[in-house]
């Protein structure tokens, strides 16, 4: 059946007065939107397959191109919106699950935008980070409730307590799990290098650790996911920390699938699977059907690494996330990473991405509150994930109780991603979510590293400014300090769950 009911999503408009027929757009579009008319030599556009990634408009030297939403309008209908109708056309034609890349794009409320921060006035001084020290150093890992000292009898003391292994972060922002496979070699390399340059950590995702990236292992967290790709004892021991991936915010309850055509020699070697075979991650870990099974895996990993690495458990934010997180801590997790429902992905069923899970703001607040009520908050660090768009979101998460955050989408955007949501097609024009060698070389890893580093530096400067404004000079004094947040336009119930007062209180 011809796919004649599906309308095009975008129109590539060409200003012929500005077009110099240089064909840069033709060479850059992996979706074959632009073409050279053989008779006239003029460059034309056929927008049917345009995904709105803006690669052509960015590279067009005369800015002759504009990408617009397709003007084709359906009869106005508040219920049957264009995307719902189009979704049905696509499924009527294809009969499959609708796929989507990146995070939830539905207009759910973003609670970060309903929270405001405090600043000092009169009764205490704000601190100028340009002139005074401002400390962002953060340690992730299990902490004892108290330390024990030994007296030497002459008034001196020495430390008796030996701390569990900790990850030292120069800034409380890490790169979330993105596997080599879901993103390109160059993108993975840029993330690893930027993490090293900024004293933070990148996460391998479930794709294993390419042998070239082992030199960055001091700044890498390795994942053990349901497919166990690339996991062996060296992989565990070379890393800085090991993360058990239970769930992902974009697709709670769902596994993963790296299609066979992406599994080339390099990815095959890194994932330890045959070349050209599908890499399927089951929805659950088939050795974890309960909390006691999780405990066994946590301790198996601790044994394998001789108790020298913190073990993290990453869960997606779902309805009873607080109880689940508490269980993870009691099962031995040193770090609990919570991924909210706006978190990104390379591919997820659209209906799951847009409808399953809860926002990170409430999940984080609920987990922090729950762990404190149980008196076990010290036993694990909390890492929040799931769409941090600016340093403002990050600092609000820390005030709600996060020790650190993971950024994924923001990191990809800094490398050029335009959120076209077509990661799953393998045709990423920005060279990020693709394994096509013609496309992957579009991301220069040096440029990627520099841009990621700049982003982290910019955000850390902003965090320091905001901290200074609040009269705080160490990040741990903001962590969980909800006195510095107020809610605007939130219900009493939401304020209660977030544990913050309303603005004006």
């Amino acid at each position, binding site marked *: 059946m011809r796919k004649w009911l599906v309308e095009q999503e975008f129109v590539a408009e060409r200003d012929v007065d500005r077009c110099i027929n240089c064909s840069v757009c033709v060479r850059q579009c992996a979706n074959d939107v632009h073409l050279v008319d053989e008779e006239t030599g003029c460059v034309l556009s056929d927008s049917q397959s345009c995904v709105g990634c803006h690669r052509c408009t960015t590279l067009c030297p005369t800015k002759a191109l504009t990408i617009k939403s397709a003007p084709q309008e359906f009869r106005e209908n508040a219920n049957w919106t264009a995307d719902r109708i189009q979704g049905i056309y696509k499924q009527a034609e294809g009969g499959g699950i609708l796929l989507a890349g990146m995070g939830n794009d539905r207009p759910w409320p973003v609670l970060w935008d309903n929270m405001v921060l405090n600043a000092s006035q009169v009764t*205490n001084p704000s601190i100028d980070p340009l002139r005074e020290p401002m400390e962002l150093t953060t340690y992730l890992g299990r902490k004892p*409730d108290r330390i024990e000292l030994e007296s030497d009898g002459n008034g001196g*003391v020495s*430390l008796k307590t030996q701390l569990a292994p900790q990850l030292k972060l120069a800034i409380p922002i890490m790169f979330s799990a993105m596997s080599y496979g879901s993103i390109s070699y160059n993108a993975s390399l840029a993330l690893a290098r930027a993490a090293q340059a900024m004293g933070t950590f990148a996460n391998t995702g479930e794709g294993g650790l390419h042998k070239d990236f082992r030199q960055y292992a001091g700044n890498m967290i390795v994942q053990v996911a349901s497919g166990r790709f690339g996991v062996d004892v060296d992989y565990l021991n070379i890393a800085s920390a090991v993360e058990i991936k239970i769930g992902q915010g974009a697709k709670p309850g769902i596994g993963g699938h790296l299609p066979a055509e992406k599994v080339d020699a390099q990815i095959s070697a890194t994932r330890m699977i045959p070349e050209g075979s599908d890499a399927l991650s089951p929805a659950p870990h088939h050795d974890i059907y309960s909390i006691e099974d999780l405990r066994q895996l946590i301790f198996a990993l601790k044994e394998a690494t001789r108790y020298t690495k913190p073990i993290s458990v990453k869960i997606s934010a779902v309805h009873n996330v607080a109880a689940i997180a508490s269980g993870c801590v009691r099962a031995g997790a040193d770090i609990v990473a919570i991924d909210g429902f706006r978190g990104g992905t390379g591919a997820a069923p659209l209906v799951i991405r847009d409808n399953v899970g809860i926002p990170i703001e409430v999940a984080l607040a609920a987990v922090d509150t729950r762990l*404190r009520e149980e008196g076990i908050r010290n036993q694990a660090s909390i890492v929040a994930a799931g769409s941090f768009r600016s340093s403002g979101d990050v600092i609000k998460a820390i005030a709600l109780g996060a020790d650190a955050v993971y950024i994924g989408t923001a990191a990809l955007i800094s490398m050029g991603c335009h959120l076209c949501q077509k990661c799953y097609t393998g045709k990423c024009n920005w060279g990020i979510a693709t394994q096509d060698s013609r496309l992957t070389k579009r991301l220069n890893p040096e440029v990627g590293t520099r841009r990621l580093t700049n982003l982290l530096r910019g955000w850390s400067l902003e965090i320091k400014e905001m901290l200074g404004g609040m009269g705080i000079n160490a990040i*741990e004094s903001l962590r*969980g*300090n*909800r*006195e510095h947040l107020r809610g605007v336009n939130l219900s009493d119930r939401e304020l209660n769950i977030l544990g913050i007062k309303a603005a004006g209180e």
Partner: protein
Amino acid sequence: MTQDIWRRDAHRKWIRPEKDQSGCAISGIMNEDGSRISGEAIITSIENMHDRGNGLGGGFAAYGIYPDLPDHYAFHVMYDNDAAREKTERYLADFFDVEKSEMIPTANLAIIRRRPLLVRYFVRPKDEVSQRHYDLTEDDIVVSNVMYINADIDGAFVFSSGKNMGCFKGVGYPEDIGRFYRLEEYQAWMWTAHARFPTNTTGWWGGAHPFGILDWAVVHNGEVSSYGINRRYLENFGYHCTMQTDTEVIGYLWDLLVRKHKLPIHIAAKCLAPPLWSQIERLPAEEQELLRTLRIVYGGALLNGPFSIVVTHSGGMIGLNDRIKLRPMVAARKGQTLYVSSEEAAIRIICPTPDKIWRPAGGEPIIGRLQSKEVVNA
């Protein structure tokens, strides 16, 4: 009859939901040899900083004042009304052996108005209570009962609960409060005083400083920007902060670190006002590890923002500034006497020629230790 003297409403209505913010003056005198002096000197010292307060709160802590009953917890309680007193006394009788109870002596000063009913009790937990709570120390039992009375008995407030020491406080300028409580008639080896300049709470007798729990008393000048997390950190360990004041969390933090976690005073000071990471990195390896571990484990106890505090306990006195010294604090010594104050003039007025006078660096604790448990009259 007491109903209309002080109370218009239950005292909890005086505590606003927002955190207390106040400017202040603090002063402390300690004779390390244990010799005792009257309250005249400390009143003179704090009076010299009259303008740092605004008449909405003043108070004192005195150590060694009850030598006749040194092993009993001295509860200083303020009541809204007789009903609260009756209820509290019934409650006390259930859990404590009350050795002695009496009205706290006061002078009639025209300037001090709306005074509550002030009673003190010398108590010890009953044997059967101690046995039932075999997993708690006597101190723990006292703390939980004080918290119960303060949170759950309407119109009663225990503002001092240590042994052989007492807090005296109220609404007014501290020099008037001192004379109201007739402090010149007490003999103590250590005195602290506080003048308050609250910016957002109504003057309430219980809200004046010092804050006291067991034999800890805290006078404090500043605003702790980390209050929210300090408070939540303390909740992990069963402390319920009901006063919305920084002073309260500081008092509980000292109690947690020193009494419960058994950290030496100078180490506890490093938890509250730790060195910067960059300073830690320059220290010898062993010290580095100790301080790094302290910061990692006690991050929730870090007091951020401007403060100068004088913390007193039965073993001595600690003066401490925030780590970047955003509030004034001066210390002096003359012979066996240690002085700590917000202003140098407040020391010089009672000790014109100290042997040594200095401004301690931020985060560097001034520690005075009682050398002898034998206290003597000057």
